[in-house]
């Protein structure tokens, strides 16, 4: 197994640990809503980006994955949703304006930085037309839409006794 696959595996394990540590037991349903809804956004968005030839993922976790689907499975269906869960659950709701913008920039910036490093050092991501600030902006927009949906949804979510 090459370095790239070890990186994906490491990231996946790290995200699972984050989920275990950072999602409280009584917020499980909230986490599900955020997790599933983000895929609604990333799935078509990722497909469009690949279809247009903007971006490419030469190496994936499963060696033959690119024969069936050339968007990044681990990123769109796991890593990003996990990031979104942490983003929305720990969002500083009391802060307005600049404070929440800073929170957005911090999350999206961290993500963009990670992707840019992977782009230049590994074969996990290849940018063609894509630029790092496209990632920054699209991640911020996705997080915003996702957070809106989550807040609308959670108005009717209640606490249930967990055994």
């Amino acid at each position, binding site marked *: 197994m090459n370095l790239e696959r070890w990186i994906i595996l490491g990231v996946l394990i790290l995200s699972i640990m984050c989920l275990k540590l950072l999602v409280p037991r009584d917020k499980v*349903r909230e986490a*599900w*809503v955020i997790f*599933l*809804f983000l*895929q*609604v956004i990333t*799935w*078509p968005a*990722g*497909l*469009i980006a*690949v*279809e247009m*030839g903007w971006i490419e993922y030469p190496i994936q976790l499963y060696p*033959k994955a690119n*024969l*069936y*689907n*050339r*968007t990044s499975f681990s990123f769109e*269906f796991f890593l990003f949703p996990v990031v979104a869960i942490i983003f929305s659950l720990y969002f500083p709701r009391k802060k307005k304006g600049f404070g929440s913008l800073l929170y957005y920039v911090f999350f999206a910036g961290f993500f963009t930085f990670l992707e840019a490093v992977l782009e230049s050092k590994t074969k996990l991501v290849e940018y063609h037309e894509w630029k790092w600030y496209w990632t920054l902006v699209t991640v911020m927009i996705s997080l915003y839409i996702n957070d809106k949906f989550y807040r609308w*949804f959670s108005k*009717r*979510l*209640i*606490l*249930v006794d967990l055994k």
Partner: protein
Amino acid sequence: MYLLLRYIPTESKRLAWITFILVQAIAWIHEYIQLVFGLVEFPYREFNKATNMSFSLHYIVYPTIAVFFILFYPKEKGTRRTFLYYLLFSMGITTYSYLLEKFSSLYHYIHWNWFFGLITNMILLYVVKIYIFWFKKGLV
């Protein structure tokens, strides 16, 4: 899509949403596995270069059907009625995909047939039902 907007009562909107997005994820994985094992193929698809999977069938059509499955789920009926209900829905979905395979190039069966489809759809619907009824406990 139109059916969803028109017929979902406002008070079940959130339930419909969670069903819709859960089934998207499940349908996607199910489709992926089918492809990896070379059971089916989708000769004509929306994103020709990006993926070998069909997009709208599993992004919109399947979840829409599942929303109605949950919406009209018979809660206080006997085992036989419930089983019939499952059978009816799975047969509907499977026949729909069978007709697509027969009359269009959207779907192509390689090592797959109507009967396999029926069984997997019943299992999928059962998984969806278990999850949604668990989730519903937290919804008002």
